């Protein structure tokens, strides 16, 4: 196996050389239709309007407080017990990861400076040390072992437990080296360690704080949490003893919780806040406002109708294919998403290395849809319930889908429930489909296995004990499992191209658009890097004087 593993090792070592530290500014102005020079995210058709003020020659200046407005509190700040997708806006500044995910989801240095795939089940990391946590506790290599074991301990009730269950044990070789022994090949390991599961903490503050650790987190990241008033604000300040001198540049970060996106935008326009996520309806105003820097880039998420393929009539692939072919996705993009984003050609977006440029979105074909329905034994059409959670985007989208499907005889009855009720009812197999998007993950396996494998945690058919996968699903399952069993990214890319084609053609989900992330900033904010996961790395920013 030597030769094969040597190439992997070399590739991963090469990646390790590119430290993520010291965010490089995204020179979006250079963007257009092509990728920037490795410093930012790939461009989408929409990024032509992106406008930032930083120039390449501008040197970072230290000092100042960055004011941010976000729409909700984190669900917690303990990497084990917090569970929200937005928690990372804080977690990435407070904690440091074993490795980081760079803007394109390639592994980059974190606490580990280098790593080596010793063999399929053994990954060795060389870590930096000689630094402390926010409370003065010195970092020890054993903390990496402790962090993983804490996630794995059922008593912790860690939401990241599932992500680390392929790790058999973590061996501390010496103060500079730690080795991960795996139960199975885990292609997504680096992406996982760059996420919540790889955020390192020490047993000392965790034990002292107990359950309160989620409100008083202690990490070794560039910023430390000073205060958190729920529904109001979170204040972070510079960690003076951060392991890299002169970093971070900001003295403090003040995040205000402002639920309404229009009010957030008003705060940005009036200079009461420096950074927000721009709501869809404010995009046009943000692009036109000369006092606002506007950045938009491809996200990992997608909009879709989630299908439960264990529920009739959607057990029949032809019915699903008819539903997919009956849709005019361009009209949906235009009417519902104001032409922001792009049509989905598969679950992997432009933000991911697994995006397949050659795969085309499913085209509208009403005749094909009718033929498929007839072939499936429904010449007079088919009727069933369509579950949604009402909202300013979902409700008109559901109506639009309903009317487009009606053209070929697919008659759906829209059932609107609250998000919690809808989730529970859908899980309980009471509806065949549910209008709910997916936010995406750093590694394709984390998106594709969980959503499209018959045992995936987000695949609601997996909750149906009576479900027996059809042959095409069995085939898909095998491909998905195979794709997670190699570390070779090029090999995986080929496999995911095939998997995505199958998912779209066999309509395992009915996808509409790939999401776009949009941030608005005041003119003095510098150093913004758009990461594919859409999470903010606030500590990387600085303020022009």
């Amino acid at each position, binding site marked *: 196996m030597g030769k094969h593993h040597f190439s992997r090792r070399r590739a991963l070592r090469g990646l390790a050389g590119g430290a993520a530290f010291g965010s490089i500014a995204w020179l979006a102005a250079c963007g257009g239709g092509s990728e920037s020079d490795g410093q930012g995210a790939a461009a989408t058709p929409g990024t032509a309007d992106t406008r930032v003020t930083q120039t390449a020659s501008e040197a970072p200046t230290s000092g100042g407080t960055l004011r941010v*407005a976000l729409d909700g509190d984190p*669900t*917690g700040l303990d990497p084990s017990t917090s*569970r*929200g*997708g937005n928690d990372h806006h804080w977690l990435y500044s407070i904690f440091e990861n074993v490795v980081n995910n760079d803007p394109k989801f390639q592994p980059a240095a974190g606490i580990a400076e280098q790593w080596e795939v010793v063999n399929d089940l053994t990954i060795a990391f060389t870590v930096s040390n000689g630094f402390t946590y926010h409370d003065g506790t010195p970092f020890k290599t054993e903390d990496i072992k402790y962090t993983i074991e804490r996630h794995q301990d*059922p008593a912790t*009730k*860690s*939401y990241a*437990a*599932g992500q680390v269950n392929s790790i058999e044990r973590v061996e501390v070789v010496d103060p500079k080296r730690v080795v991960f022994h795996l139960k199975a090949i885990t292609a997504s390991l680096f992406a996982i360690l760059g996420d919540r599961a790889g955020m390192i903490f020490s047993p000392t503050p965790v034990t002292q704080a107990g*359950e*309160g650790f*989620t*409100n008083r987190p202690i990490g070794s990241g560039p910023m430390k949490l000073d205060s958190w*008033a*729920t*529904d*109001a604000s979170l204040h972070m300040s510079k960690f003076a003893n951060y392991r890299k001198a002169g970093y971070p540049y900001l003295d403090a970060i003040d995040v*205000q*919780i*402002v*639920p*309404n996106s*229009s*009010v957030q935008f*008003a*705060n940005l*326009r*009036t200079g*009461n806040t420096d950074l927000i996520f721009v709501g869809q309806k404010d995009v046009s105003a943000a692009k036109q406002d000369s006092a606002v820097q506007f950045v938009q880039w491809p996200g990992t998420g997608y909009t879709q109708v989630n299908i439960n393929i264990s529920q009739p009539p959607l057990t029949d692939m032809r019915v699903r294919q008819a539903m997919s072919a009956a849709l005019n996705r361009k009209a949906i993009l235009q009417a519902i998403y104001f032409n922001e984003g792009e049509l989905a050609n598969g679950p992997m977006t432009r933000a991911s290395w697994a995006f397949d440029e050659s795969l085309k979105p499913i085209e509208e074909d009403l005749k094909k849809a009718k033929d498929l329905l007839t072939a499936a034994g429904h010449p007079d059409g088919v009727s069933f319930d369509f579950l949604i959670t009402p909202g300013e985007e979902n409700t008109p989208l559901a109506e639009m889908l309903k009317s487009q499907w009606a053209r070929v005889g697919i008659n759906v009855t829209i059932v609107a*429930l*609250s*998000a*919690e*009720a809808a*989730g*529970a*009812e859908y*899980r309980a197999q009471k509806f065949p489909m549910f209008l*709910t998007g*997916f*936010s995406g993950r750093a590694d394709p396996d984390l998106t594709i296995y*969980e959503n499209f494998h018959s045992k995936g*945690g*987000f695949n609601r058919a997996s909750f149906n004990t009576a479900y027996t996968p059809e042959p095409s699903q069995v085939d898909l399952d095998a491909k998905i499992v195979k794709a997670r069993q190699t570390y070779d990214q090029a090999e995986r890319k080929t496999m995911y191209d095939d998997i995505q084609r199958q998912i779209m053609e066999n309509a395992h989900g009915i996808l509409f658009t790939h999401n776009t992330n949009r941030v608005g900033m005041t003119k003095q904010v510098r150093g913004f890097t758009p990461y594919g996961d859409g999470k903010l790395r606030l500590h990387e920013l600085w303020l022009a004087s």
Partner: protein
Amino acid sequence: MTGYLIRRLLNAIPVLLLVSIAVFSLTNLLSGDPVHALLGEEVVITPEVEEQLREDLGLNDPLPVQYLTWLTNALRGDLGESIQTHQPVVDALRERLPVTLQLALAAWLIGVAISLPLGVIAAVKRNSWIDHAATVVALSGVAMPSFWMGLMFILIFAVWMNVLPPSGFVNLWDDPMQSLRYLILPAVTLGLHMTGSLTRQTRSSMLEVLNQDFVRTARSKGLKERRIIVLHAMRNAMLPVLTVLGIQAGGLVGGTVVIEQVFAIPGMGRLAVSSVFAQDIPVIQGVVLLAAAAVLIANLLTDLLYGVLDPRIRYGR
């Protein structure tokens, strides 16, 4: 008087008890599951962790047992712990109540400051353009949804004129001037919403009093019109107005739900919204109990004020 007070306070106990039973039952009747609400749709956990969470939250107990456990603890002053944040509910309420009280009181004062003069002037200048204008102003306050009005005020006073902050909150005792700057827009939005019924009530009540004999007598005695209106007519017209004011004071607690959401104010309203969405039953219970207590107290104060305004009304027997 003391006996009356004690009786009223004792009467409040069964009301609060009934409210708590109703809220507990209704929350549990909602479809959905607090554990799944806690996890969201995009968290994959093992069934063992899910079961442990359910056990820890006491959700495996029968509903009557869950309620009795809550009640027993509540009688000891322990309203439980938030499912979402693990913060003790009492602490959450203690943090949020002063915020909402500041907003509600400011809104109430603004509502009164607009409605009473407007209603009195409309009555005195009956059928004049002032009367019609007062009606338009008062009814506009009711007709416009408060979230929309709030957004319009933000657009006008924060974005276009840049004279007030768009959102946020500063405690009165931390920085009184800043606090007022932040309170003006939400308090005016909420206050305007109560002007409709209050102005109309003041106007009709004043019209009725102004036609009574004692006002005619006062005029025939040569008293100045302003003295007649302020000292004689207004005092007598205030009883029905006071009733409306009392009801609205209680209702303001509900009104803050929308306003706090729009203006990003960390009060009881925001807590109510987030706890309902998360099916955070202990917090919902705490918020609703406190809101019910606020309504009861507002009603009690109104009843006591009747006696101040009209010496013929006396309590105690």
